[in-house]
């Protein structure tokens, strides 16, 4: 419910509908009562304090809110939280283990694939989805797969290099 925001207020009145949902976030099963109009991105950010998922445009253009929904990239500002009932969501916070970064995260640091960092979680998750489908992408494949995510700082060239760096590393790990 949007009363996720209410740290000191009474819960909303009976006329406010809420739905109980069960979802898996970064491998953990969560149960929450939410108002249907609550956007998935707000459930993650406000309800679960997973603030690595950002909002940048509100109109489904920028991809800063990209998460993996049942393994496929989705813009969480363009989904309702109730839609996640029975599904799994992965956010940037679920990419690394406590000791090990995902090769994509490493690639972004190694190749200077980020500046302000705001688009980075969405970019990395879109890249993760790409590499799962295509472990050996060309530069054009990467540019195409990331064309639903906007970056204002890097000019994309280093983001592309970062993803190719990660692909190389992941292939090397396979062998």
């Amino acid at each position: 419910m949007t009363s996720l925001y209410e740290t000191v207020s009474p819960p909303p009145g009976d006329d406010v509908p809420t739905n109980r949902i069960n979802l898996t976030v970064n491998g953990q099963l969560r149960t929450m009562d939410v108002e249907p109009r609550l956007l998935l991105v707000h459930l993650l950010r406000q309800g679960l304090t997973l603030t690595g998922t950002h909002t940048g445009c509100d109109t489904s253009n920028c991809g800063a809110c990209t998460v993996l929904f049942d393994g496929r990239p989705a813009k969480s500002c363009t989904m309702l939280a109730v839609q996640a009932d029975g599904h799994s969501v992965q956010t940037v916070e679920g990419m690394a283990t406590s000791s090990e970064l995902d090769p994509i995260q490493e690639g972004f640091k190694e190749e200077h694939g980020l500046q302000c960092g705001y688009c980075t979680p969405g970019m990395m998750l879109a890249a993760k989805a790409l590499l799962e489908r295509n472990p050996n992408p060309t530069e054009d494949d990467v540019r195409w797969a990331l064309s639903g995510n906007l970056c204002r700082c890097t000019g994309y060239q280093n983001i592309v290099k970062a993803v190719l760096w990660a692909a190389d590393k992941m292939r090397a790990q396979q062998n």
Partner: protein
Amino acid sequence: MYPSRFAYDAPKSLAEAIAILDRNGGEAKVLAGGQSLVPMLKLRFAAPERIVDINALPGLDYHRLDPDGTLRIGALCRHEDLEYSTILPGAFPTLAEAAALIADPIIRTRGTFVGSVCHADPQGDWAATMIALGGRIVAMGPKGRREIEMRDFVLGPFTNALAYNEIAVEAVIPAARGTARGGYLKLERRVGDFATASVAVALDMSGDTVTRAGAAMAGVGGRTIDANEAMSVLVGKTLTEESIAAAAKAVAAAADPRTDHRGDLEYKRHIVSTFVTRILTKIASTEQKAA
């Protein structure tokens, strides 16, 4: 941006979904991919009392060919399923080319073909391909099933022919008689941009002769433009420089663009003509190579 308040159901069966729509008498809205609806809720351009989420309905996420080659696309088939489809490229080249040009790659994982057609955006790509291919929509309602020809389905901008208690469950696209040829070209300024102009062309060919010719356009009118009649100049002909030019001229004349910051109407008409020419010329050269 935050949607206004609504109630929500995620029915597990089609009958239940239709019953909910029926009970709510036009105040409920179907949510499939949600890639147009949710932004409209956020902008508060849409404020339904109830959302009926059909994503939990079983068995609608298919696209498959009937034995006679007819293509059936279920209501939960996502754009991405079509983009990576192995059955489209040979049999439905128009759809195969359009699939990669829908919105952007992330939206394509959620948005649905049928939902996009129902949205009836004058700039929608899929509606144009459906018209060019002579497709139809299967609707289910309290009174059962009915099929609506695509040319009758889109009534105007953002308006379709579904009754408030009907759900579009499937798109049906007939197989080509003979060889399927076609293409889709779109002038967009960047990935995900609305089309300045786009053209869908679909031909049935027997040898080097065109037996059926379809075309439709997006972005160049207050609704999806049906140019099938204009394309009929090609029927019974081979693709020559002359016949291609006649088709391009006829299709461009059918466009009804208006001047805006994307370009003036003459420019948009010119793009339509150029795109028709390019698609047909490419088909002609493919035919030549095949021969």
